[in-house]
């Protein structure tokens, strides 16, 4: 039955979107961070998705021709935004350079909030897919009653 692997497909979508939300939240939280372990200001990060086959609970049985066609999704890469830092004149700041400028991360909170909304909506879409499929499985089970 391919319905169970359908749940795995949607679950892969949920975990990918959650990872994306995590990275976006990190960006917003670090919007004003001027020091990092690597030195310099925080750099904005973003995820890259790629489609990938999912592992299903009964993989050996389900790797039939029917099930080989639908793909889930996974995070293939986390890219660092290499735009130049935002330099602000703050001579009293401990991280100011000799001219009195402090490098701040180039994070636009509006941009990340919009992305976060997108991630949240996509997560909800995957949840609805799971509940629809769950209902179909339940209907099939009810045939035995």
């Amino acid at each position: 039955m391919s319905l169970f692997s359908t749940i795995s497909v949607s679950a892969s979508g949920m975990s990918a979107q959650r990872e994306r939300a995590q990275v976006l939240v990190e960006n917003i939280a670090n919007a004003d961070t001027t020091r990092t372990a690597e030195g310099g200001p925080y750099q904005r990060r973003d995820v890259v998705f790629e489609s990938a086959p999912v592992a299903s609970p009964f993989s050996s049985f389900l790797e039939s021709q029917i099930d080989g066609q639908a793909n889930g999704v996974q995070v293939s890469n986390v890219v660092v935004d290499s735009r130049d830092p935002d330099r602000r004149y703050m001579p009293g700041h401990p991280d100011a350079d000799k001219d009195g400028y402090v490098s701040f991360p180039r994070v636009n909170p509006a941009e990340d909030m919009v992305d976060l909304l997108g991630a949240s909506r996509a997560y909800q879409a995957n949840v609805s897919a799971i509940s629809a499929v769950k209902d179909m499985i339940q209907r099939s089970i009810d045939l035995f009653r």
Partner: protein
Amino acid sequence: MLDPVSRNLEQYMTLLSVRQKLVASNIANADTPGYKTQDIDFQTELQNAATGLPPAVQPVAGLTVKNDGNNVSLDREARLLAENALRFNIASNLLRSKLKMVRMAIEGGNTSS
């Protein structure tokens, strides 16, 4: 199975679950760059169901392609998700009434159980 109608219902439900899986895959890949919406030709595949061949998955034409090469329309997928679930619901109810008739015959018309 029991009779041709039940067999058709079974094939119909199998095909619906294959389609539902593709819809779930499209939703999961709604933000994947370069991903193209996939679907099956339901009418043709239902006619071919008796041959036992796996359904042919094909990209869907006529959808708007976004800047990243992705053409998943969440509205279309949401509609198909609901439609498949409802169709499956109908088919399973029909199949259940078929099974009920068989059970009734086995029990000699005693429908108390």
